[in-house]
């Protein structure tokens, strides 16, 4: 190995390690999944012999969407694949396998896509799946200026980066779901407490017992076409005055 090549290999090794640390770091605490994926595309360009990279993810209905790209031009090329329903990314997503096309000038399985690539100055392309076990979440696309595609070790590295990114995506999804569920629980708990508080307010205001207070609350909700918990909360915060439920009685 020449001095230059050795230095280049050492730099690449350091950058690879740094990239993994950077991505894993983002998983601790709050993180923006788009930011992580955009970081991934720019690191792919630096680490691999790729001129550009882009990421597509499937939405809830299984349709691929462009999420991040190292350049604006790639954003358009990725969009082109989705719109024309052809290209390495779609094949990769459907099969869950790496798709490597080393010469787009030769007979291409995606004639329209190959033509667009040629115009943009790309000669070969590689797509690796973003996956979680048997489930494919989307794919990472790399575009090369020269024919020949990526080496086996480059593909392996791209797949490793894609796997780390997949964890980020899954974690992001789980955290979002979790926040919604927690919010629902908190709201239900507070609403339920509000009903008891509203009963106490009505009971004291009308000098009646809790059962009577609850039936007044219920019949007011019914006759005014309001939800019981929503009415109770409105009473507790004072949006609905307790006098509206029944007249005030002085304690004896």
């Amino acid at each position: 190995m020449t001095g230059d090549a050795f230095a280049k290999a050492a730099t690449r090794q350091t950058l690879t390690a740094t990239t993994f640390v950077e991505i894993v770091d983002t998983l601790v605490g709050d993180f923006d999944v788009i930011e992580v994926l955009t970081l991934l595309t720019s690191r792919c360009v630096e680490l691999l012999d790729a001129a550009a990279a882009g990421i597509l993810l499937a939405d809830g209905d299984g349709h691929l969407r462009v999420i991040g790209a190292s350049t604006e031009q790639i954003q358009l090329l990725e969009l082109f694949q989705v719109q024309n329903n052809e290209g390495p990314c779609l094949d990769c997503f459907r099969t869950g396998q790496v798709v490597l096309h080393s010469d787009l000038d030769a007979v291409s399985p995606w004639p329209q896509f190959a033509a667009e690539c040629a115009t943009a100055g790309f000669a070969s392309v590689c797509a690796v799946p973003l996956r979680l076990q048997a489930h494919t979440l989307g794919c990472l696309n790399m575009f090369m200026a020269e024919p020949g595609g990526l080496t086996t070790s480059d593909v392996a590295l791209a797949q490793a980066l894609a796997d780390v990114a997949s964890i980020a995506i899954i974690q992001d999804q789980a955290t979002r779901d979790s926040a919604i569920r927690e919010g629902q629980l908190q709201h239900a708990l507070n609403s339920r407490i509000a009903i008891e508080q509203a009963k106490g307010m009505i009971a004291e205001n009308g000098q009646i017992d809790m059962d009577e207070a609850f039936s007044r609350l219920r019949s007011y909700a019914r006759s005014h076409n309001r939800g019981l918990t929503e009415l109770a909360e409105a009473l507790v915060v004072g949006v609905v005055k307790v006098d509206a439920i029944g007249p005030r009685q002085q304690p004896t």
Partner: protein
Amino acid sequence: MNSDQSTRLAVAFARETARSATARLCTACVDVLAVTGAGITIMGGEQAGPICVSDDRVAALEDLQYAIGQGPCRDAFSSGISVHAPRLDGEVSARWPSFVSLARKSGIGAVFAYPLIAWGAKVGVLTLYQKGEGELTTAQHDDSLALAEVLTETVLSLQDDAPSGALAAGLDDAVQYRAEIYQASGMVAIQLMIPAEEALLRIRAYAFANDQTVADVAALIVARRLRLPNDHQPETED
């Protein structure tokens, strides 16, 4: 077994547990972790209520923490990490004096509180009580962390099945248990013309000052045998 498989198993277990009576969850924790007592409280902001306790002694200790707004339970919930008090002396008794005093009187030597937390969702606390002093074993600690995660999923699963906006039947005990306290806070709100939240604080303060439990004070208010004094002094006069 890889970690994804064990997560799935835990979620399946939690869903299964959610279908059985919540009252039995504490007994299960006591058995599995081999501790003296356990309490599970669900919390939302300032509001908290036990969904189960293993015995009356634990119930009294959980009540006290709620009444005075301090103790291992609250610390574990606000910090999001487990709180360990292997001995109830020194620093611990300075931090929670009333709690430590009642715990000692009840024959409790050590307390451990684990937040019910999973994927960033925080729903309550699992508190473990030990007769003797001393740290939990590493195995007990690991199992407690795992159980806390399963219990979080159990609580969330219970709520998932509830009608929109309503509290799940299995979690209703948390409110029902303190129903009189909330009713009393509504009554005091009207009597003193203050918000219900503030009324709740007044009841807690009155109970603490008069060495009574919050539940006892609330019961007297609801029975109309006690009216809290309106001792609020306006800070400025209009």
